[in-house]
């Protein structure tokens, strides 16, 4: 689409000029940081085309870092019930939420590595927060296994074989602590599933969810814009979203 590319470049240089003007960047005095110049993306045409072709070819992120295939399918099904496809747009499954959660569990978040995990462990008051010794990836392992057990006990079928109403029923039992688990809190696991579903739906697509920024588009969220000086004092304005990828200029 050469026409579009040209238009994009024109917009880019216009907004760059506007930005320079409105931020008052032509400033003297003691320099306090060099990010201003480097922040403004320049598009190099040849690179743009090359990268666009490559990304059309394959998305190598659609693979698993932590979940088994069975766990992955269950997370896909459960998160789709939390955030289902509807007239607004795609649900968790098509947004890539299960890939997002899988990838997150393989890193710092999954290991609770920036959290205080030293003993001794005591059961505390609710207002004292999480006091368990097990980490998020283990909570997912146990939670998903118990979700499966509960489905088998109640409906004699695995979770992904259930119809939507039955899946909702099983998830509600977890959300309302109607299942009795010994190692983890059923509602704690459900809340983690719910909050990571929203993270996967709405975080920058760089994390494998919010596919094609469809999550943002549904709610008219403009994503990662550099400036809103033009619209901040205006009535509601819809701006097509951009992601962090655009900040690197490709």
């Amino acid at each position: 689409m050469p026409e579009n590319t040209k238009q994009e470049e024109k917009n880019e240089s216009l907004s760059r000029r506007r930005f320079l003007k409105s931020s008052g960047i032509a400033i003297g005095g003691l320099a306090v940081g060099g990010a201003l110049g480097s922040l403004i993306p320049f598009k190099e045409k040849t690179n743009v085309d090359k990268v666009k072709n490559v990304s059309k070819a394959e998305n190598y992120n659609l693979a698993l870092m932590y979940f088994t295939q069975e766990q992955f399918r269950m997370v896909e099904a459960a998160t789709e019930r939390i955030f289902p496809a509807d007239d607004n747009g795609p649900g968790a499954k098509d947004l890539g939420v299960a890939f997002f959660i899988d990838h997150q569990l393989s890193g710092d978040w999954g290991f609770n590595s920036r959290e205080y995990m030293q003993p001794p462990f005591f059961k505390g008051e609710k207002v004292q927060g999480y006091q368990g010794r097990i980490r998020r990836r283990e909570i997912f392992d146990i939670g998903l296994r118990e979700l499966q057990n509960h489905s088998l006990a109640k409906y004699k079928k695995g979770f992904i074989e259930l119809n939507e109403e039955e899946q909702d029923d099983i998830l509600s039992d977890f959300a309302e602590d109607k299942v009795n688990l010994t190692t983890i809190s059923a509602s704690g696991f459900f809340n983690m599933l719910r909050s990571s579903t929203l993270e996967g739906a709405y975080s920058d697509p760089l994390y494998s969810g919010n596919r094609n920024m469809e999550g943002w588009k549904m709610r008219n969220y403009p994503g990662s814009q550099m400036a809103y000086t033009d619209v901040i004092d205006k009535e509601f304005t819809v701006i097509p979203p951009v992601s962090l990828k655009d900040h690197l200029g490709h």
Partner: protein
Amino acid sequence: MVKKLPKTDVVIVGVGWAGGIIAAELTKQGLNCVGLERGKERKTEDYFMVHDELRYALRYELMQDLSKETITFRGNEKIRALPMRQYGSFLLGDGLGGSGVHWNGQTYRFLPYDFEIRSKTIERYGEKKIPKDMTIQDWGITYDELEPYFDKFEKMAGISGEENPLGGKRSNPYPTPPMKTTPVLEKFKKAATNLKLHPYNRPSANLSEAYTNPDGVSRAACQYCAYCERFGCEYGAKADPVVTVLPVAKKTGKFEIRTHSNVRRVLKTGNKATGVLYVDTTTGEEVEQPADIVVLTSYVFNNVRLLLQSGIGRPYDPKTGTGVIGKNYAYQVQKGSATGFFEKEEFNTYAGAGSLGMVIDDFNGDNFDHSNLNFIHGGSIAISQTGLRPIANNKVPKGTPLWGKEFKANSIKYANRTLSVGGQGSSMPFRHHYLDLDPTYKDEFGDPLIRITYDFEEQDRQLAKYLTERCVEIMKEMGADQIDSMEELGPYDITTYQSTHNTGGVIMGADPNTSAVNNYLQMWDAENVFVIGATAFAHNGGYNPTGTVGALSYRAAEGILSYKQKGGILA
């Protein structure tokens, strides 16, 4: 084997707002300063990829690594304190600039009432108005005495604002005009005016226009990009220590910053400090930095912890009410608020700035009559347009399920149709709210964590209810179709974010028996130790604390210079 370094004039522990201001002011006057910062170097270029809600807002990129050190918490003395294993109620900054990097930039001056709260409360309502265990006391300084230092801080940071019609008297207008009055702010302003209240644009450290400060530091105007709180500013438009005071200190050639340097003890001989002991966290090496003057400018919890661990000052004893280190820990009452859902209008709430807002102080301090109310003080009430980022903002009208088809539909429908008016309630100290060393839990070096003993009191419940009612009235006047609001405050809960406005523990005052530092923030019990920050607050007011911390830092800098020349207790 401890490595001992040559002596310096002043060692500064923690390089955030307070540490940066001290460094700039002292080095300008020729003193040699060493700044020890346990986190890493930070600079504006770091924020090239900052518009990332997941990384910065939800995974706490700029915050202290809790696996190495946290705090413990209990609601009262009968309960076992347990570690805050994950972030929630407040966020501890880390790295150069400290919490001054990830703040929103809302820059207020505490009210004249705040500094003389005990005297003024008794004067108007009699001593009986103050509950038995409420330990409010005057700060040992008046608003008028502190005014020139507020002015100095505002000029350094370039605060954008307009005069608060119900605030303390100002010697000068704000150095830059207020930020833009957006349709959202206009709506609040109109409603508040109709209700005969006194709205004003929130004083902002996000610059409304390009500005050069008295030190010659130039910064660009805010772009309303909506990524302030929990983020660093990629434009340098939000005042933070890294783009204001630190370059000024560095330019003198008399300021040395050592990052990755975690101070474990203040060293002393008799009643004077001799320096500090720290660990170079990149090598594990223990280093002694001798100094004539020791200045503690870390966050509230670590200022208190360092003093208790070093045996400096008299630890507070809640049983007798004697001692001062750890006394009068206070927080804030943030939950009095109202959320309005608008069927016919959408707003550009995806855009904003950390300090973009419209405020009223009609129900703050003693600006209203408390004769028939069961609480003292109050709080500011504001509408804020800080930018509603999509992961954390999925408000749905009461009655909507929290997941599933209806949740999704409503959360999307109201994504740009929701406005909130919130109260920032003050927090009074009580005899049994305090900080001490935890007997069980340790940090990465084996030193005890600080322990918080704190809960909401009847004062807070009444205040929250009152502020909620006022917020609802304003929201009604703004024309919301449905309004949801707090039903009751409940107990203090460390798991949900409220504010990073923790205060007290090394409070200031005029009497060495009831305060830890004088009005230059010099320790009564160790004259060459100055403890700067919101630790000095004898209670917490109805505003964000940074403006007042900034003013106190400039005051302390003056004190340190004077101490360097004359010695002795300054006040």
